[in-house]
């Protein structure tokens, strides 16, 4: 074929997306910050001379940059930097694990609802609608107030309030993709429903799923902090950015740095994930490929 069609060289979806993504400087910055936060949380504690749970009651409320404690010490004389890093482990992993759970549930529900439509779809999507009727915070608080707080419960709870959005996105995608010729062709050449759903359709919804995933991480980190702020979160002495903030609020007037450090960390992490999601959205959405 030597037609004109070949004259406009097309890039692989991934390649083109990477080029578009690279141009999105904020998203790149977001990715870098996330990397720094993740590495910092993962490796940082090994580099610091302080243990995040070591209490030195004589050194309470040391302000930042005074002595060895870069970010100062908290109400029990623990190193804020060390707690920030350990808190990062908790907060980031809650964010990521909650996202993974929410994604898994959302994708399965959305795929089934979108593929089968009809009664199955209606029932599943009404369930989604029903859960969406509870404002997230309401649902989270109701659930949190009713269960024992902890790492796993918090993660699951946050996931439980986040899967509906994914389900909706996937449902819409699958529903429209189901009518696409390649899906009909797969049906025509005898693919099973599961095969069509998860081999043909879901991979094609990957763009919105990836975007939703990053935004969900951001949301989950925020939610963790809300839950902890309201007093149902990660149990002490483990640190999370949320419970650090919660503990700090009564010292807001006397030791504001205690509130500033985790607040900035949360904002930074959430902003980065949001930027990343935004960049991915632009990169993966071919409609944005208008010259």
């Amino acid at each position, binding site marked *: 074929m030597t037609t004109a*069609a070949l004259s406009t060289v097309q890039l*692989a979806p991934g390649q083109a997306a990477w080029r578009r993504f690279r141009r999105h400087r904020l998203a790149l910055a977001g990715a870098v910050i996330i990397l720094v936060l993740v590495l910092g949380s993962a490796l940082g504690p090994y580099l610091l001379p302080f243990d995040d749970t070591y209490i030195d009651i004589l050194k309470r409320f040391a302000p930042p940059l005074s002595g060895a404690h870069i970010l100062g010490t908290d109400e029990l004389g623990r190193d804020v930097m060390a707690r920030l890093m350990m808190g990062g482990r908790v907060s980031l992993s809650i964010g990521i694990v909650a996202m993974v759970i929410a994604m898994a549930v959302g994708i399965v529900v959305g795929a089934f609802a979108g593929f089968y439509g009809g009664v199955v779809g209606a029932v599943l999507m009404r369930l989604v609608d029903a859960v969406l009727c509870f404002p997230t915070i309401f649902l989270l608080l109701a659930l949190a107030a009713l269960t024992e707080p902890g790492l796993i419960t918090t993660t699951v709870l946050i996931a439980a309030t986040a899967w509906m959005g994914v389900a909706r996105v996937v449902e819409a995608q699958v529903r429209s993709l189901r009518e696409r010729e390649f899906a009909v062709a797969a049906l025509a050449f005898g693919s*099973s429903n599961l095969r069509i759903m998860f081999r043909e359709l879901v991979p094609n919804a990957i763009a919105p799923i990836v975007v939703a995933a990053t935004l969900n991480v951001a949301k989950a980190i925020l939610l963790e902090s809300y839950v902890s702020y309201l007093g149902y979160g990660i149990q002490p002495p483990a640190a999370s950015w949320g419970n650090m903030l919660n503990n700090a609020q009564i010292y807001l007037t006397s030791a504001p740095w205690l509130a500033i450090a985790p607040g900035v960390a949360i904002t930074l992490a959430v902003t980065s994930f949001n930027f990343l999601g935004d960049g991915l959205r632009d990169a993966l959405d071919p409609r944005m490929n208008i010259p």
Partner: protein
Amino acid sequence: MSIGASGSEQVVAGARRLAEAHAPVLSVAGLTTSFMRERQWIPVVRNVSFDVAARETVAIVGESGSGKSVTALSIMRLIPQESGRIEGRVTLAGRDLLTLPEPSMKDIRGNEVAMIFQEPMTSLNPVLTIGFQIAEALIYHRGLSRAAAEAETVRLLDRVRIPAARSRFHEHPHRFSGGMRQRVMIAMALACKPKLLIADEPTTALDVTIQAQILMLLKELQEEEGMSILFITHDMGVVAEIADRTVVMYGGQAVETDATAAIFAAPSHPYTRALLAAVPRLGSMDGRPRPMRFPIVDKVTGTSDEPTDTPDTVSTAERPLLEVSNLTTRFPIRSGLFGKVSGRVHAVENISFTLRAGETLALVGESGCGKSTTGRSILKLVAPDRGTVLLDGRDVLGMDDRTLRDCRKQMQIVFQDPFASLNPRMSVGAAIAAPLHANGLASASQARDKVADLLVRVGLTADMAARFPHEFSGGQRQRICIARALALGPRLIVADEAVSALDVSVKAQVVNLMLDLQASMGLAYLFISHDIAVVERMSHRVAVMYLGEIVEIGPRASVFSNPQHPYTKKLMAAVPVPDPARRGARRQASNDEIRSPVRAPDYQPPVRQYREVTPGHVVQLWGEEWSA
């Protein structure tokens, strides 16, 4: 090619006369338009020059990517400034549009040069009434009062033959069909009596009968208004129908510019020759009972191969491969709290036909006639309400899922859009092998061999298996789709508008491939198409569908040479003939719209009677609705 010499001379002479009498309205010289891609200026239109004289229609014709639309947009300076660059000269009545300041350009647009676009469905603002959208040009450019503009708008709507113009003034675009919207666009374009109308593929999205109406209308209006038209199209039939002069574009360049008759009579550029050779011509198959390959012309040298007749592939001895009887598929339209059926789309209504092994039966008709639904119903991709489909004597519709999956190995489907037909996230090899894997028919290495074999069979190479769909052109993708359809060794292929979206030259090649495969594998095709000329070329038998019913069916030669049903006649008359010499025959410019197959829930379809014209050629008896 059989253009009447006298006819073409007449047209050429007329065009020359016009051109000499007036200075060109529009003169394009050395137009080069580039777009910024990857920080580089990539020229998309290169050094294009042509003139449009007063009252003249100039067509720019070319295949996708040839730069014809960009040329049109460049004249209007509608290329985004930040990412596009226009060079050269565009002179409109002595003024260079490319150097004009933007505010003055606004006075040109819509006033001296008007434009209409391909997609009537999206080109009108959905939240504004059509009257308003026309009137605002009048108010803005001609300073009319609101009332005067409204009166003028109604007059314009009348002129583009919109029935009940006054009452429709306040309606929004969604209340209009595609053809009517295009009339609205034309009315809008004519509002300020422009010197030049640029029509960018204005009929491409329309059905053939509607296309004919719009072309007629444009011609009439041009005569009344005395304006020039720059007509962008890919369809040589339309070119022959409307253009005085033609610019052939290829790869961003104007490769040939001449009077239309001259180009059709004696194309000088190899590409033009190749293009014309690939254009299917209705009536060119007279006297040939079997399908025929298209001649293939080399685009560089212009040399052509000799099209050969296809061998007789139809097996007459056995029982037909496919027997469809009384097939009916309706889609309920539900509304209300309990999903009460408030109406039904009678997509397929009581149709029956047979198809023999090695035979091609074409289903033709316009949008909404149910031809695609018929194809899908046969494969049980949609559930028919009634009727039987026998494949090799086995009842497809009554099968359980497992048997159906097994049976589908015998029949496969190829779709219109080669871009949508392949999963973009699957390599071509995986896509072709998917049917094998889905049915558990082959090991990995067996599948690899089979894929290689199939790729070669459809004219590609085995090493392409690792590539992804986006690396292929539309024609190649359609070959891949065909390869995938062949993977299970089917005996019947439903080709649902399989070549309709392809460029003319590619279309010819794919049709040739399908004919070759039929010859070598004895495939039966149910060839669903709205493109009558292609159907004529490639089918043994033809069934014409209208509102879900087959109104006429029979051997292709018989139906095309002796159409009986008024709809068949109308359909065939509407097909633009790529022969400027035959343009003279004016067709009746009706305002008929394509009727909707939506019926009330209690609608009882009438019992139809049929008449056999010649052996195998059957026509539905029609009632008064066609008598007018």
